[in-house]
């Protein structure tokens, strides 16, 4: 079961989300997301229903991976911050302890300077929470939800969609 990334600590998960909310409000951003390096969404600030979070996760992770590859070619370990400037909407992307990716979407109602300042503050909180999460993950016994799955359970997954 080493090929798994567990997020079993709901308490810490909600702390991640509280910090995402706080960052969104304090920086006057439109939305904040936290994803892992494979593009899976870990949490988001409130009122993000209008965003296609799954696709944003996959594309941001691809983006970070590609620029990471570029960094390696240039002899850098990684680029810790990426910024994409659009006509109206902008995206600020930063790495959390090299493991998670913090995404902030904002527009002209704030400034890049404020976003950078608030992101810096939040990164420290996320880094602390990540340490806490990893510490707890090595302690608790997690329920193995796969242990008594039958072939029928797997077949039933496909009862919907496809043929």
């Amino acid at each position: 079961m080493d090929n798994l990334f567990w997020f079993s600590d709901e308490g810490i998960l909600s702390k991640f989300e509280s910090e995402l909310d706080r960052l969104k409000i304090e920086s006057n951003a439109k939305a904040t997301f936290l994803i892992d390096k494979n593009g899976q969404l870990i949490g988001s600030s409130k009122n993000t229903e209008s965003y296609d979070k799954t696709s944003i996760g996959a594309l941001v992770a691809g983006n970070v991976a590609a620029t990471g590859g570029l960094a390696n070619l240039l002899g850098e370990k990684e680029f810790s911050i990426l910024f994409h400037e659009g006509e109206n909407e902008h995206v600020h992307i930063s790495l959390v302890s090299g493991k998670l990716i913090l995404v902030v979407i904002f527009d002209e109602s704030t400034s890049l300077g404020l976003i950078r300042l608030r992101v810096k503050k939040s990164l420290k909180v996320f880094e602390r929470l990540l340490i806490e999460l990893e510490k707890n993950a090595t302690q608790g016994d997690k329920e193995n939800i796969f242990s008594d799955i039958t072939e029928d359970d797997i077949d039933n997954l496909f009862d919907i969609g496809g043929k």
Partner: protein
Amino acid sequence: MSFINYSTREINCKIVYYGPGLCGKTANLQYIYDKTDPNLKGKMISLATETDRTLFFDFMPLKLGEIKGFKVRFHLYTVPGQVFYDASRKLILKGADGVVFVADSQVDRMDANLDSFDNLRDNLQEHGYDLDTIPLVLQYNKRDLPDIVPVKELEEALNYRNVKSFEAVAIKGVGVFETLKQIAKEIIIKLKG
């Protein structure tokens, strides 16, 4: 790397379609996308060149049913098949839970199949994965074309692990869902431990 979120009760797994250029990886995803209930799929993203060759990857999230109260979602990716996009292929394999190797059945693509399979092994190794143990399914595509290699020969050339393999015509949907179902099964069986 599978991702289990207890708070939202979701399991997410990553499947990568791998194979030589123009073997039909994107066609597999496109068929799945076209035939899946809109409520179960997210947007299909294709990062392609102007000539529709995959530049970085195709991506499609697919929601399936539930297992033990956990919603199961598969994230399907393809890699660019062209030889010179190796850096992109490496990046996309990162975190993969399972691989579908799509082989082109045409006689004159056999060398490309073998090169791509070797390339898969090397790129998996760079991420610390082993082609001998990772969930793997083979798909022999383009079975409707003339001048194709007999399945027996494809099996001898590629299926040294004796994994499940499927004959396919991806653009017509033949073998596409069978392949997807099988790799999903392999991944869940591996997660069972």
